[in-house]
């Protein structure tokens, strides 16, 4: 069955995994804006207010992104896997969807913990 070494690796992995979550998944709270990063272009940051759709150009073609009701999503993308589109609506700070083949990442930004509220 499983050797001693197998068990050690398994238990170490299980033990260390929560720290990954704690490090990169700190609940940043409610969403306030979204950052669109496309390789080779400067980032665009938009507030999550209002409803709009826009196109981002990538090496494979155009990805369409939609903001509606405080949420954001990939509407369409020229990649094969369509995982970015399947990620669906992003609503909480820290959430993100990425179209790796097209080099585009959409990440939701939340409140900065240093401040109690942000004016803009």
């Amino acid at each position, binding site marked *: 069955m499983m050797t001693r070494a197998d068990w050690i690796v398994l238990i170490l992995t299980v033990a260390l995994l929560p720290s990954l979550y704690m490090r990169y998944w700190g609940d940043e709270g409610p969403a306030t804006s979204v950052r669109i990063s496309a390789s080779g272009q400067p980032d665009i940051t938009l507030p999550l207010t209002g409803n709009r759709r826009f196109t981002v150009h990538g090496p494979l073609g155009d990805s369409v992104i939609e903001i509606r009701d405080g949420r954001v999503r990939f509407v369409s993308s020229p990649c094969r896997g369509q*995982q970015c589109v399947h990620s669906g609506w992003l609503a909480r700070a820290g959430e993100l969807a*990425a179209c790796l083949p097209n080099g585009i990442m959409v990440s939701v930004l939340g409140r900065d913990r240093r401040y109690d509220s942000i004016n803009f």
Partner: protein
Amino acid sequence: MNLTVATTRQDHRIAWLTALAITIHIAESALPSPLPGIKPGLANVVTIVALIQYGWGTAAWVALLRVLIGSLLIGTFLSPTFLLSLAGALASIAALRIASWLPGRGFGPVGYSLLAALAHMAAQFFTAYWVFIPHAGLFHLLPVLMTAALIFGVTSGMITQLALQRLRAAEVSAL
């Protein structure tokens, strides 16, 4: 003058193992996956079986050929997807090499499978980070990806375990 390519027994093994791995890989690539890079990695079962039965050399060939030929067949050769798969394959081969140096009883199929899966996923992630999307935000995906690697690594390890048991039973009964 006749040029013949003398194929060894190892070549034959590599060939049919690779063919098996590619078949599983292609079948799996037809499945949708929720996040980039998350695939059950069932083709890895073939790699680990090769490692345990025939040694690291065979396993390495199978892993690399699978990525290469698989991408040619699916049509993703030299694409970003290909680069990610290649990075993953190289990392898991390296991890298996190092793991195989462990003295004593060493690792079993589950251990190898888990290590290979973790190395594979980590390499894919960092390749995506350095080459395609150098943004800190991408790290938000890392815990999920590594959890998936843990689950699929252990699962394929157990499948490998079963496969090996069957193979050995078949060998015994063939004696």
